[in-house]
């Protein structure tokens, strides 16, 4: 960014408490990473030292005002230290089962529906409409995506079908929240119930006991030449589903749209102070309609990833199993910001991946990792580690004068 106009603002890069805290968080990861494949340090001293550095960086940042990121670094340091030490004590072959390169691929896969959902929720809430109906919109995308791919014979049609279905439910939510000024929570919950019923009903009606035919066209993987054959990196990112890459691409894209374009500025204005937007001639209703419909389409892409992406052409009733709510949590945890939401989606994807892999150590305790996203979000909304603050007019119907 050029800033020759405002010499007042000090935008030069000085490592402030925030940067130190981010570095601390990374160190926490390193503390853990050092003890697992491919490095697999066997001395507990290494993760301990690195972890302590991370915690120190966090404490330093917290005392200098960067509470949120600082606490993140402290948590990361403690967890990294603990997991790292645990890893050095555990048997090497178990480690190789859990921490393989395709753990990264798996994290990215688990994070993708969350990323789409969280970005969708963010678009809607940034315009001032609370969207607890993400789960339903995602589920609509999952079923109608696979249906359209089946009947249309192409995964492209599937994607379009999913977006249409999600957009339709977005429209429904918009009509209720903007037009009827309904309670947006009630309307969102209604969307969830309705989606569960509609997808289940039509799945039974259209496919009955036969299930989705096995030859359904699915979103292809992207095999990156050369990279795919590299050690470690290859299995991690060399052969990922196209929708994973699209999801990652949407993160900076939505950042640019929301924060670097006139449209984004107007959307945010509607979410912060709709009357101010109205007095400068912005059509608040139109902006909110657009944002909520977009939100439905994005969430539906997350659903389509489940049905015709990662899981390769299938559908089961209530397939999303609460992923829409984790996406909601990721959006809140990420403070209604694209990269924050993505970071949260990755973290939550990581906890899910661990939950699938840790049973090699202990049976059911791994299940508890699935609850981690919700615990973290609960702590975040409670303001223990720097309060998550929604847009000022989020959830408030706007009435023109």
């Amino acid at each position, binding site marked *: 960014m050029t800033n020759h106009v405002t010499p007042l603002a000090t935008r030069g890069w000085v490592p402030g408490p925030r940067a130190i805290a981010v570095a601390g968080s990374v160190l926490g990861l390193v503390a853990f990473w050092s003890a697992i494949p491919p490095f697999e340090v066997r001395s507990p001293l290494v993760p301990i030292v690195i972890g302590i550095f991370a915690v120190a960086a966090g404490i330093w940042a917290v005392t200098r005002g960067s509470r949120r990121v600082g606490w993140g670094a402290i948590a990361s340091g403690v967890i990294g230290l603990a997991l790292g030490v645990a890893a050095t004590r555990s048997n090497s072959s178990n480690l190789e089962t859990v921490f393989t390169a395709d753990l990264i691929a798996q994290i990215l896969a688990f994070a993708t529906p969350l990323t789409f959902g969280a970005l969708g929720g963010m678009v809607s809430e940034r315009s001032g409409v609370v969207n607890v109906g993400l789960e339903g919109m995602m589920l609509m995308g999952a079923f109608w995506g696979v249906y359209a791919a089946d009947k249309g014979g192409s995964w492209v049609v599937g994607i379009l079908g999913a977006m249409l279905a999600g957009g339709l439910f977005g429209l*429904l939510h918009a009509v*209720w929240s903007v037009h009827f000024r309904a309670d947006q929570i009630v309307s969102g919950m209604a969307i969830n119930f309705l989606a569960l019923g509609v997808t289940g*009903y039509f799945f039974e009606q259209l496919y009955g006991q036969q299930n989705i035919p096995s030859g359904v066209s699915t979103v292809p993987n992207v095999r990156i030449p050369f990279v795919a054959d590299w050690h470690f990196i290859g299995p991690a990112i060399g052969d990922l589903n196209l929708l994973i890459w699209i999801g990652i691409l949407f993160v900076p894209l939505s950042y640019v749209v929301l924060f670097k374009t006139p449209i984004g500025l107007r959307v945010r204005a509607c979410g912060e102070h709709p*009357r101010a937007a109205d007095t400068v001639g912005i059509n608040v209703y139109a902006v909110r309609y657009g944002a909520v419909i977009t939100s439905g389409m994005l969430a539906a892409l997350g659903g389509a990833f489940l049905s015709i992406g990662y899981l390769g052409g299938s559908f089961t009733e209530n397939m999303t199993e609460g992923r829409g709510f984790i996406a909601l949590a990721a959006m809140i945890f990420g403070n209604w910001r694209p990269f924050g939401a993505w970071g949260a989606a990755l973290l939550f994807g990581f906890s899910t991946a661990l939950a699938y892999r840790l049973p090699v150590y202990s*049976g*059911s305790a791994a299940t*508890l990792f699935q609850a981690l996203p919700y615990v973290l979000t*609960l702590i975040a*909304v409670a303001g223990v580690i720097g*309060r998550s603050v929604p847009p000022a007019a989020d959830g408030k119907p706007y009435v023109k004068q």
Partner: protein
Amino acid sequence: MSEGNAAPTANVPPEQEPSTNFSVRLGVAQRAGGVAVPILTAVLAFLAGGIVVAATGHNPWTAYHGIWDGAGFNWVFHIPWDTNTIHIDAYNFSQTLLVTTTLILCGLAVAFPFRCGLFNIGGQGQYLVGLVVANWIGVSFPSWPTLPHVLLGIGGAALAGAVWAGIAGFLKATTGAHEVISTIMLNWIAIWGAQYVFGQGGPLQGQNPAAPESGSIASSAHIPDFWGTSLLQGLDYGFFVAIAMLVLFWIILNRTTLGYEVRAVGFNPEAAAYGGINVRNKYIQAMAISGAFAGLAGALDMLGFLFQYGVLDVQASQIGFLGIAVALLGRNSAIGTGIAAFLFGGLLFGTTHGLNSNVFDPSLAGNLTSMIQGLVVLFVGGDIFILYLWNARRKVRRRQEAPAPA
């Protein structure tokens, strides 16, 4: 405040219209259309469901008739003298009442905080917490006599639910965290937590190490049946507990100072504070009472007929969420919640186990229930839409009565 609104109080600007929260709106809507609006809501939802059924090539009349019979509603008309649940219709009816029991309590868990201006989405989580605690207590003291064992199970589960929901109330009161977000999070923590405790290697897993299921509660913790036989899952005395809770709900709200305070906060927190009420305390208390209702629902299910629960059951359970539809359709009143719970109880049982699969496919019908549930919530939420229809009807009638427009 500028002068424009100082004089004409009748013309209060929209942002100064005091406390247009959801409980106020529901109150207004209720008086505007009386019981007609909720009835219209339900009828519209069933109509829309019927349209879907017809559009997919089934006869909606047959389908609804099958659900009616499946719920055992026909028993009331045909053979009221035959109370032997060996007969299929009577059996269905008893099962409908069994589901109604749970739904009444899950509905109350949503209705009570609503009266305090809070939206409790966490009924499912509170229900599961109650279920887990009831199972734990039920398994733990096999040598106890029935009455104290059941009472301990019920009390412990209600307390656990109260604490679980109380977390959301506490966060709302102290940090201002929105109760909707925190109850959603608490739901999923409970859902995964329940899967953990009942799952393989979990602390409450039963005897079979291969089965991700809880242990069976001791027979001393079974709530006795009063209708039908326990071999066929009869109707237990928990039903009367639920009815008693409806009465208790009404008494708390209308005959205690706590209820007075809760309603005052729900309608207008500022006026309540001006009246000397500690608004924050009311938030915590209202959520705790709500959680107790949901926890009780979990206990009655566990001790009444489930006796055992598995990870798959946790994943499939939706009954706590259905409480939202029950409370909204019942307009958060005791009698309304009772009637709505009965309606949804019939719908739920009549579309699943009770339904004759030759009449209508239960796998379709079960989803029809979710659809109707969604539509009911949608229509209650869009009360302006329903009121619009209601007023349009009256306008049409008025126009018919007075043909010359003024």
